[in-house]
């Protein structure tokens, strides 16, 4: 056995399908005691599968998420903004890699996950199927999309699966730079010329509702949530997190001098929260089902990048094999 990595099999997760009775009871004890499950512990097959699904979808989202922002690297308004945007997109790649590694500790193979994404079979966050037509969209993504991601991800730092929680801690630290840089872009535009202010407002109008939908369907409509919460992977429900996010956004929008595009948004003193309008879940479902503006483009781009990089991956392996052979030969010669 090699550390935290079970040998990956293309047939799927390694290890016994179901834990023994003692394994199950020790799993239950750890979960009840708010402890962490580590890679080689016995765990129910459903727990493993559910984690692989969630972690790999999360990884795919980070990888696909590089595209809407990558779109603006060559056209960032200054060298300063360009350097920041490159660092941010590089972070997204890093987040994807931390997460793929975490999924691999459950026996999933990197190659299978990659192939599922390229084949269009794997899901990723539907938010990345929206386009970024203006520079202000980069600000809105940082403020709203990364803001929603942080809201979602901070509780995941306490997820019951150790490697996932550890990856999330690293990711959350880096995301806060992302959100602040987005806020700064919007604030600069909002305080600029009337045309720039308008650009910022339009971008917020575009991204507000989709970012609220990032928390997933309403609780009543979210079949996996209850199980995930019982396993302490998820700590708060979709609706709880969405409410928390809206409550945070209102004063931030005021600081930006921008409005949130929801006529039903108002403070409810009785609840101690902001009320907000119904979201258009038919749009969410359509984008998830592949009818978003950029679904086809995103996967095609990823496929092209993967294909065009094949020779690099192959050359690196050939070089490594040659070097190893040469070393072996000289070791034999010296003996």
């Amino acid at each position, binding site marked *: 056995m090699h550390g*935290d990595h079970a040998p990956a099999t293309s047939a799927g997760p390694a290890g016994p399908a179901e834990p023994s009775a003692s394994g199950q009871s020790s799993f239950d004890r750890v979960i009840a005691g708010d402890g962490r499950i580590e890679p080689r512990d016995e765990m129910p097959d459903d727990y493993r599968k559910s984690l692989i699904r969630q972690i790999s979808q999360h990884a795919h989202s980070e990888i696909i998420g590089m595209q809407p922002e990558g779109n603006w690297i060559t056209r960032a308004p200054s060298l300063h903004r360009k350097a920041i945007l490159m660092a941010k997109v590089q972070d997204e790649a890093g987040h994807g890699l931390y997460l793929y590694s975490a999924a691999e500790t459950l026996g999933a193979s990197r190659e299978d996950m990659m192939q599922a994404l390229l084949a269009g079979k794997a899901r990723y966050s539907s938010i990345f199927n929206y386009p970024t037509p203006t520079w202000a969209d980069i600000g809105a993504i940082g403020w709203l999309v990364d803001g929603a991601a942080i809201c979602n991800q901070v509780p995941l730092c306490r997820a019951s699966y150790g490697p996932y929680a550890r990856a999330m801690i690293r990711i959350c630290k880096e995301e806060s730079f992302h959100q602040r840089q987005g806020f700064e872009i919007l604030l600069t535009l909002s305080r600029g010329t009337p045309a720039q202010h308008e650009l910022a407002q339009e971008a917020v109008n575009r991204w507000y509702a989709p970012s609220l939908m990032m928390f997933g369907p309403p609780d009543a409509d979210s079949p996996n949530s209850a199980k995930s919460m019982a396993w302490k992977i998820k700590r708060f429900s979709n609706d709880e997190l969405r409410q928390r996010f809206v409550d945070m956004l209102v004063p931030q929008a005021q600081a930006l001098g921008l409005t949130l595009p929801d006529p039903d948004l108002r403070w409810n003193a009785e609840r101690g929260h902001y009320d907000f309008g119904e979201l258009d879940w038919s749009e969410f479902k359509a984008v998830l089902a592949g009818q978003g503006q950029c679904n086809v483009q995103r996967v095609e781009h990823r496929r092209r990048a993967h294909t065009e990089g094949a020779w690099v991956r192959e050359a690196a392996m050939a070089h490594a094999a040659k070097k190893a052979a040469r070393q072996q030969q000289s070791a034999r010669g010296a003996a």
Partner: protein
Amino acid sequence: MSGSPTAEWPLWEVFVRPGRGLSHVHAGSLHAADAEMALGNARDLYTRRGEGVSIWVVASTDIHASSPDEKDSLFDPAADKPYRHPTFYTASEGVPNL
């Protein structure tokens, strides 16, 4: 291309020393064709914000780990030896520097 070159890059475990005077600590893992590339990738992946002053990479297949099944036989014997801890001895309470 035929044979091994098309195979998936092997997996490496990354250990980072966060500062001088501290031990290397496991940071995560990554795929790379060889050790040299693993070091380069580890630098890009795990030390983008000054998290380390030194990196180790170890092929994941070279890590040998104790099995969770052996947890009891390996670690339980330590549980019934409280006399290995200084707090076990109370006769010296109140005596200075002891």
